[in-house]
């Protein structure tokens, strides 16, 4: 049975009259891998810093193991952090960096100072260096290490203290794609081996989906959706989540009945129920859920306006009655060809209208949007 470890209760953060976090409510279970996912400025790093103790929420509570810890300073929390740019101590070598936290005397529950013996420190540091595959690097200067190695030192330095919770602030942001994939696996393995709660901050949706038990999608200082990676991808709660997680075509629709949605004045079978009759909704159709068929057999007919080869598939932009869709297909369809499409009932995801309706999901400016995404990734976080 999962046990609740951390809870944020109506956590609010105002800074210079601006609301960074708008009454966040969130609980995190023991041994859970939870990811805070969202674009720059969504409040994910702020949330992490509140849990780490570097920020005190303007209002609301932070509960750790049933105790309110709003005013407990970072060095007295059973939480350690892996910082975005690692923040390794340049005047210490790899061994000394990892041993840093162990050499600080801790105050035990009876108020007595606990000082670890040299041998204890030594065996724990060595064990941890082995976990992060840095055996033999003890005496290397941290400034001489590659990004991936520095990353491992940062993780070892935090984990060696055996925290209940490890906070990771975009720890893989500075690594190249290949290394990032390896480290994702590695982090997941370490988390499961050590049985520690990980709270992970990232703007990379793929990273979030592939590593987490639970994903918390944030935007504008609010939690948009909490769920398993599958929930978040398959059942996005609003247009923001649908757009941020993976590619989505989002069109206006009307629920004509349970399991019947109307888009482009045509009725389609879907699997969603529980909406009011004739309720206006947002309809998400994932690019990979669209089947291309000869024009005559299509439920909808459109014209291909752009084709991009992606290796595994083609990304094609198709114009349906002035609305541009992104479709991923392994069939080559030349530009200006007319095609028909079919969508199975489980290809539709129906969402209630939200403040984000109409903002996303049209691919008229696909290439520009693509540029923006890559810009956002290279940009520094908050």
């Amino acid at each position, binding site marked *: 049975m999962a046990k609740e470890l951390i809870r944020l209760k109506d956590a609010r953060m105002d800074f210079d009259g601006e609301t960074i976090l708008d009454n966040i409510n969130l609980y995190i279970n023991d041994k859970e891998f939870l990811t805070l996912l969202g674009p720059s400025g969504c409040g994910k790093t702020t949330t992490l810093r509140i849990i780490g103790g570097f920020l005190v929420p303007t209002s609301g509570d932070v509960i750790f193991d049933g105790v309110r810890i709003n005013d407990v300073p970072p*060095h007295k929390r059973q939480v350690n952090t892996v*910082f975005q740019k690692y*923040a390794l101590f340049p005047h210490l070598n790899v061994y000394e960096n990892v041993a840093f936290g162990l050499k600080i005397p801790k105050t035990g529950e009876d108020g007595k100072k606990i000082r670890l013996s*040299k041998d204890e420190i030594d065996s724990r540091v060595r064990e941890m260096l082995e976990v992060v595959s840095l055996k033999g690097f*003890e005496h290397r200067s941290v400034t001489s290490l590659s990004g991936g190695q520095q990353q491992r030192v940062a993780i070892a330095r*935090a984990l060696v203290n055996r925290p209940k919770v490890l906070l990771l602030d975009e720890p893989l942001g500075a690594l190249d794609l290949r290394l990032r994939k390896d480290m994702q696996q590695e982090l997941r393995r370490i988390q499961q081996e050590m049985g520690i709660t990980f709270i992970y901050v990232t703007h990379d949706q793929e990273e979030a989906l592939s590593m987490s038990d639970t994903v918390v999608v944030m935007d504008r200082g609010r939690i948009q959706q909490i769920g398993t990676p599958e929930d978040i991808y398959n059942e996005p709660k609003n247009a923001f989540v649908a757009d941020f997680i993976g590619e989505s075509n989002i069109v206006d629709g009307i629920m004509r009945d349970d399991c019947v949605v109307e888009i482009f004045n045509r009725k389609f079978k879907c699997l969603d129920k529980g909406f009011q009759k004739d309720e206006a909704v947002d309809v998400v159709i994932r690019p990979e859920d669209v089947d291309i068929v000869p024009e005559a057999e299509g439920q909808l007919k459109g014209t291909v306006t752009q084709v991009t080869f992606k290796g595994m598939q083609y990304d094609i932009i198709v114009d349906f009655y002035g609305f541009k869709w992104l479709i991923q297909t392994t069939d080559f369809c030349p530009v200006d060809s007319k095609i028909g499409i079919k969508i199975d009932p489980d290809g539709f995801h129906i969402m209630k209208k939200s403040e984000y309706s109409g903002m996303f999901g049209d691919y008229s400016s696909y290439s520009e949007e693509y540029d923006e995404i890559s810009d956002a990734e290279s940009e520094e976080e908050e």
Partner: protein
Amino acid sequence: MNGERRRTAAVLAPYTVWAAIFIVVPLFFVAYYAFTDNSFNFTFDNITRFFTATSQVTNDAGVTSEVRTYLVIFWRSLKLAVISTALCLLLGYPLAYIMSRAGARAQKIMMILIMIPMWMNFLIRTYAWMTILQDTGILNGFLTSIGLKPLHIIGTESAVIVGMVYDYFPYMVLPIYSILAKLDTKLIEAAHDLGCNSIQVLQKVILPLSVPGILNGITMVLIPSISTFYISQKLGSGRFFLIGDAIEGQYVANNLHFAAAMAFILMIILLAAMALLKYLTSRPRFKTVKGAAK
């Protein structure tokens, strides 16, 4: 020499000439004068005179003794300079730290406040301290007005130290500040995160990382204060003859060769001291941990 290096040499030529004229040539002349007599024959006499010359001094109890004149003067200079440097460091480090952590505006204001005295003439600053520290000066006027006893400061070592600390203080603060301002605040957060309280963060992270700034500050304060001369004459009422005063006196008396010898010896001692300091503070950076794997 290939083309690339020749181009570099050409670009650097003006600086090479500048360095030659203003650094190498004067040093050469100091050394040349130090090792020659009045008719420019080679001699060690000036050097030996510094170490062996003696004079009679009478202490306050009226006992007369013979001392090595210049070694006593040098020792006194060194003592005052070390005390002043230590005070500059003790006062300057916290200020530099506070400055580096202040807001951008506050940093600018503090910087200007530290720089303003440096724009004023050194003599005027020293005279200002005379007015403040005199027996009937501003300080004692203030002390008597609040009912305290006046202090006799002018003409004591304390007055000389006050003057030196005041004059050289910015040279301690600025190098330390420039290091601390660049210090990544994430390192401080990381130390807190790993269990340090504020004092431990200072001990284990901030101080070790600011060693280069501290060394620069010490160099920039110790060297001018050991060879200072005017402050001791004015604030010490001429009672504390320092090595700088001795060199100046010999030059004024047109005894250039002995003055050069003293300057030369002082320079060698300072160079040796700075080298030693550097050696002592640059601990083997990545020292071996006991029992570590080879």
